[in-house]
């Protein structure tokens, strides 16, 4: 499941990544994406709302700086594909915006925190409704372990061993730029 972003008192918080740290991690991921795919041909970015979409936009900007080419950018909202409607009830649905066909494309799926893998499972199902991609690669800022499904990330900003009841908070400013990543112990 995705980490909640609620703050509460009497919690111990640890700074995991600050703004320059996040920036360096994303720069490295951008280079790794280009290296592994040998350039930008047939490459598209899709960010998972909300958080992953902001990071995907930053990756697009970085790839443009490096290669001089702007990749198509999509946003996917996975609420309608979740498997916990019965246990957690309906939640607000965001807009999915993928204005291009994914058929034959190499899709870089971007999320902020990889945890149980269930959000990614939902996102993979959602992407399949937009065509038949050549492949889907997963980029995450934080991999915190505790997978419940056989899913792994291709590009990881930071591997972070966590306890199950801890939370990872990725905060963004008003312009949707990441500020920091914090670990919150209950």
């Amino acid at each position, binding site marked *: 499941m995705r980490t909640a972003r609620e703050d509460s008192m009497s919690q111990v918080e640890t700074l995991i990544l600050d703004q320059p740290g996040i920036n360096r991690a994303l720069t490295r991921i951008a280079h790794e994406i280009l290296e592994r795919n040998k350039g930008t041909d047939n490459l598209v970015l899709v960010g998972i709302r909300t958080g992953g979409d902001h990071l995907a936009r930053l990756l697009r900007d970085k790839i443009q700086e490096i290669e001089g080419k702007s990749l198509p950018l999509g946003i996917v909202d996975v609420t*309608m594909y979740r498997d916990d409607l019965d246990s957690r009830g309906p939640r*607000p*649905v965001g*807009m*999915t915006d993928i204005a291009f066909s994914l058929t034959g494309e190499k899709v870089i799926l971007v999320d902020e925190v990889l945890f149980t893998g269930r959000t990614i499972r939902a996102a993979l199902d959602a992407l399949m409704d*937009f065509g038949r991609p050549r492949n889907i690669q997963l980029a995450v800022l934080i991999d915190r372990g505790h997978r419940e499904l056989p899913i792994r990330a291709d590009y990881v900003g930071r591997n972070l061993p966590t306890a199950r009841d801890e939370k990872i908070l990725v905060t963004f400013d008003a312009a949707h730029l990441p500020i920091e990543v914090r670990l919150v112990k209950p």
Partner: protein
Amino acid sequence: MVFRHKHIIALRDLNKEEIELLLSTAESMREINGRDIKKVPTLRGKTIINLFYESSTRTRTSFEIAGKRLSADTVNIAPSNSSATKGETLADTALNLLAMKPDIIVMRHAVSGSHYFLANKVNCSIINAGDGAHEHPSQGLLDMLTIKDKFGRLDGLKVAIVGDITHSRVARSDIQGLTKMGSQIFVAGPPTMVPPGVEKLGNVVACGTMKEAIQDADVIIMLRIQQERQGKTLMPNTREYSRYFGLNPVNLKLAKPDALVMHPGPINRGVEMSSYVVDGPQSHILKQVENGVAVRMAMLYHVCGGGSVE
């Protein structure tokens, strides 16, 4: 924001935030309706029964498509082939349907308030697809969505509702919903078709003439003359009605130049609206129908698990 209602029976029961949530969900659902593969797995394994005691094409089809796009199994029951014609009571029909374990019953019934009666008898969700002259919440929501698409807001708009207010559940849902969202409503119709005390329903002004109601209006909602619901004749004839309360290109000019023209359908062309207006550039009638599917998807989605969350 979590939707806490198990049933959606009337917009009167919802607050502003809940209406906003349903409308914003509907906007997201619209994106699904524009895809090549118009289906998401959200309500997989849920069973929806469309129980329509009154005839309906638009609403029933719309609810059926909405359910199917969310991957629910939808079953339609129409009066002509149901046991109601054999004398079964509503409660008995409901209990029998319940034995088949539906998750949602979408019902249209001629008796106002029958959904509240049904909600007390069953443990599944009830969605009102129109009850007598009470409410038609999905129509109210799709009207609001259509208006919001055009103006980007609902507050501060002048909305005229013209026609048979007394027998119109659409008018009641529009009044309940739009009042909560901050619109000002002006109703007009023959005195026999405007209920006394209509102002008490919300932010409503009852007008003596159609001209008063549509003057400088942002939105004009024309209602159908419901011959089937009117016990005795409430007007001399349709030609006279059309002359005083019909919308035509001439009196449409009284409204704001970009005013939105809507109608819940089915339209009696030449009675409440002239064909020039129905097919004209200001008519958003088909847009309403399109929004109907998205709004109903939002309603089905939010009642599932609604009330059970903490």
